């Protein structure tokens, strides 16, 4: 009797399964929905599972030698001219009872490097330590006769060279824990990090003539963040706090003969407290978040005549919130809606400060203006699956922005869009998207508080009425197993419909083509190509009337790359590879004023090539030899010699033109 009864059960289950299927919803295979009535997990075994406890990973010491006469090459080579040692490591320890530790070290010893250590018991608790260094090199040949020491920029008799580069050193530590109480999962974390940023960057002051100089950077940013989250099967809630404190060691800059010519960024701090939650019922997900924050700045204000305060009580309160609902009605229809809100409320005090220049309207005294913004976004979209090959989406987005003291205090932008996913072509995906948006708003007041002497015909581009039309096509095709091709084309047209002066139109169109190939087990390759064009026009009036000059800017970008790797040499012990990249950014600007004036060169290009060979010395030891070449050129007609323009002191021509070479040798040792 048992046999037939089981069959009945089976038949009923099969029938109920059939009914369930006919509900036409996407399947839900989550493990918490599994029917485990007949499972006896005590008998589950894994005798065939390998024992992966213990240490594993690799350690890779190495060295690079660079030949370059321009420090800018250190951006690509990750190190300056000369020889540098480095260490890479990726180590893992796994204990038998869930204890684990990981260490990842990337390029330690080079300009950009990082290290990450973590240890703990999986799913219970974990401690993490981080280190990261980021470097950015602009130029090593900036020319200046001003040298910074103790808040003073001291002129020297000779112009000397100066390096413009920035270095960030970050350390961080984090503790996290997780525990299951009943059916609820509790997670908690706390993180502290500190960043030191040092170096020099290009800046300028007026004394009274403009002088470009190397602004010293020496600042520390401390961050604290923590969070608690509690989750059940259908819900999740999270409380998070983050705090950031910026401490600038560079105080007001003075010249020996003129004090306080430059006020560096003031110390500041900010915090944010957010509460978020998610609830799932059936096929509907509701997510919500509410956050409140504050940005504060009470740095001592430079004491000048006409300054009524010692310290300013700068305070901006922020409020952000979002509610999002996603509902899958059946396997054909899905509805999504969201509302988000963001407010910046400047609660600082206002004072009248003496200005060194008169603007002719407000006189020599001016009151600081407190800028508030309030933004509301709402979005709805519907997705309908026509059949297994076609899916149509359509949506409506709207953004309403209010701002205080702006030339236009309210703007709103509405966007309608549609997407069509097509999968009817074998081994292919085609996505088409079209959108149209229109920005409008309150009456434009060119003579607002912050723009008191602007030409009334001007429409600031980020406030102006604008119609935007955009199209996008994405095509992915894998005609055969060994190749995958992707092509993306985009077009966007911005028409500033009510603008006489200012940006009147902009067109941006591009394509990007990419092919990945795996010819066989040993030979792989890739190739990509892309171009982008951005064309814009704007009008100006130097007669404070209608347009009497215009400018057309044509930007063009080309990007090409190709590479391959072959691993079948010397009985598969030797693999060789090649990567090549070409990039060219150019901007052609023409100003029409009485006659057409070309602006001069503004472009950059680079050729980057890398050859490498990886030889398996033994089962545990690999040797890698690499060579990299970088050809870089950029030019900007605005860059001129230090005193080439009367009344202006520059840092010289900060262009680049170099060939750089790098040779790298490393040995990678596998621990297991």
């Amino acid at each position, binding site marked *: *009797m048992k046999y037939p009864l089981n069959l009945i059960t089976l038949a009923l*289950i099969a029938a*109920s*399964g059939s009914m369930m*299927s006919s509900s036409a919803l996407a399947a839900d*295979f*989550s493990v918490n929905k599994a*029917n485990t*009535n*007949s*499972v006896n997990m005590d008998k*589950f075994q*894994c*005798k065939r*599972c390998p024992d992966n406890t213990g240490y594993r990973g690799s350690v890779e010491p190495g060295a690079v030698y660079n030949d370059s006469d321009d420090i800018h090459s250190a951006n*690509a080579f*990750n190190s300056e001219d000369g020889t540098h040692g480095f260490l890479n490591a990726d180590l893992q320890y796994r204990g038998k009872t*869930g204890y684990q530790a990981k260490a990842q070290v990337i390029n330690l010893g080079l300009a*950009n490097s990082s290290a990450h250590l973590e240890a703990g018991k999986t*799913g219970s608790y974990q401690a993490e330590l981080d280190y990261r260094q980021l470097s950015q090199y602009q130029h090593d040949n900036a020319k200046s006769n001003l040298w910074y020491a103790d808040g003073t920029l001291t002129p020297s008799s000779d112009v000397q060279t100066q390096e413009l580069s920035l270095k960030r050193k970050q350390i961080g530590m984090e503790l996290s824990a997780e525990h299951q109480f009943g059916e609820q999962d509790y997670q908690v974390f706390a993180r502290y990090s500190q960043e030191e940023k040092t170096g020099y960057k290009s800046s*300028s*002051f007026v004394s009274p003539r*403009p002088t*470009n100089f190397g602004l010293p950077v020496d600042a520390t940013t401390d961050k604290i963040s923590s*969070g608690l989250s509690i989750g059940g099967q259908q819900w*999740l809630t999270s409380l998070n706090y983050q705090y*950031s404190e910026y401490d*600038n060691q560079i105080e007001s800059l003075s010249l020996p003969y003129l004090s306080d010519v430059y006020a560096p*960024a*003031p110390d*500041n701090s900010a915090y*944010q407290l957010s509460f*978020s939650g998610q609830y799932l019922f059936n096929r509907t*997900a509701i997510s919500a*978040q509410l956050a409140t924050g504050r940005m504060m*700045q009470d740095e001592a204000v430079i004491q*000048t005549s006409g*300054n009524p305060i010692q310290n300013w009580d700068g305070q901006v309160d922020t409020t*952000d919130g979002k509610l999002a609902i*996603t509902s899958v009605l059946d396997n054909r229809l899905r509805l999504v809606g969201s509302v988000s809100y*963001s407010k910046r409320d400047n609660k*600082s005090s206002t004072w009248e400060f003496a*200005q060194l220049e008169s603007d002719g309207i407000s006189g020599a005294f001016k009151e*600081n203006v407190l*800028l508030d913004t309030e933004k509301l976004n709402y979005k709805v*979209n519907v997705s309908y699956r026509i059949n297994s090959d076609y899916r149509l989406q359509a949506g409506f987005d709207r953004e309403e922005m209010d701002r205080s003291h702006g030339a236009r205090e309210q703007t709103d932008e509405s966007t309608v869009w549609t997407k069509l996913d097509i999968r009817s072509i074998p081994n292919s995906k085609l996505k088409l998207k079209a959108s149209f948006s229109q920005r409008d708003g309150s009456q434009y007041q060119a003579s607002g508080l912050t*723009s008191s002497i602007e*030409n009334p015909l001007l429409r600031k581009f980020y406030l102006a009425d604008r119609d935007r039309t955009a199209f996008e096509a994405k095509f992915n095709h894998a005609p055969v197993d060994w190749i995958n091709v*992707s092509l993306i084309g985009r077009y966007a047209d911005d028409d500033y419909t009510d603008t006489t002066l*200012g*940006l009147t139109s902009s067109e941006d169109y591009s394509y*990007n083509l990419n092919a990945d190939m795996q010819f066989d087990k040993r030979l792989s390759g890739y190739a990509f190509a*892309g171009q982008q064009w951005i064309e814009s026009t704007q009008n100006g009036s130097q007669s404070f009337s209608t347009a*009497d000059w215009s400018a057309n800017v044509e930007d063009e970008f080309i990007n090409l790359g190709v590479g391959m790797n072959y691993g079948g040499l010397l009985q598969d012990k030797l693999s060789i590879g090649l990567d090549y990249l070409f990039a060219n950014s150019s*901007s052609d600007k023409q*100003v029409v004023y009485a006659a057409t004036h070309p*602006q001069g060169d503004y472009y950059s290009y680079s050729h980057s090539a890398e050859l490498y060979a990886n030889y398996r010395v033994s089962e545990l030891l690999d040797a890698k030899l690499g060579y990299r070449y970088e050809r870089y050129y950029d030019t900007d007609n605005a860059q001129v010699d230090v005193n080439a*323009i009367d009344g*202006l002191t*520059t840092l010289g021509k900060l262009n680049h033109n170099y060939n750089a070479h790098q040779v790298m040798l490393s040995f990678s040792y596998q621990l297991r």
Partner: protein
Amino acid sequence: MMMRIRVSNIVYGIATLVLFSFSIQAVPWEQLPAEQLTKKLETKFSEGKYSKKGADSCLMCHKKNATVMALFDGVHGQDSPANSPMAGLQCEACHGPQGKHNKGGKEPMIAFGKESKLDAASQNSTCLGCHNDPKQMAWHSSSHNLDEVACVDCHQIHTAKDPVMDKLSVNDTCTSCHLEAKAAMNKRSSHTMQWDQMTCIDCHNPHGSMGESALNQLTINDTCYSCHAEKRGPFLWEHEPVVENCSTCHNPHGSINSTLLKSRAPLLCQQCHMDDGHASRVVPQDGQDAFGGGKSCLNCHSQIHGSNHPAGSKLQR
């Protein structure tokens, strides 16, 4: 006894007919259309016919497959913590109950990735069953979910190290679809993404976020301030577009112009400033005077992000 046999025979017959109506039983599962395959897998899932010995039942046949065995090198192959798949239903936690899969290969298992006929939502339901934590809180309304991106389009499970979880390869994963972002990294100015010194996830959460543009912070400006705290202020003298949105002037993914600017000074400035003074002045050619040479408008108005100098209303000091 005779009656009992007859009843059982009738029941047996009905059951057989019901089962037979699932003609898919007789069709090799590789050839099943997606919809029928999904139905079959749902049926199997609800039946809950799990194997007797868990992973060992699977490895009896699949042990020689290196990809299968690579699971044990990664986090999903560990038998702790208690909610790990290998501590529970093991392989069948993700691939569903074995059923008769091992008997002639006629029954499909839940499969993932390029070869799977299951839609993204069905595949993702397996992952979301466990990964319901704050990092995934905004997944359901994220653009990746709405565009039917499957978890395994980005993530690999049967591996020692998921490439998308590695700082050195996460950018490759993102830019395999976001080709325009890959290209933008190589423009004249960009964040240091092309050398993987910065990563896409330094700013974005690919699982979606409650902020703008799937950013880790709630607003675009908060995202920028997380690295550029010196621009946070508040400043005594503020610049309206800076306060409102950094991306009004900058394109964080890269620009043909230096310092990620969408346009260059003086033209960028003249898209907003056209007064009765020098701001409206035409600059016929760069490098000829102080308006078009050096740092252009920023020769004088260098504190474009805000000034804390009491006499800094014109953002000059």
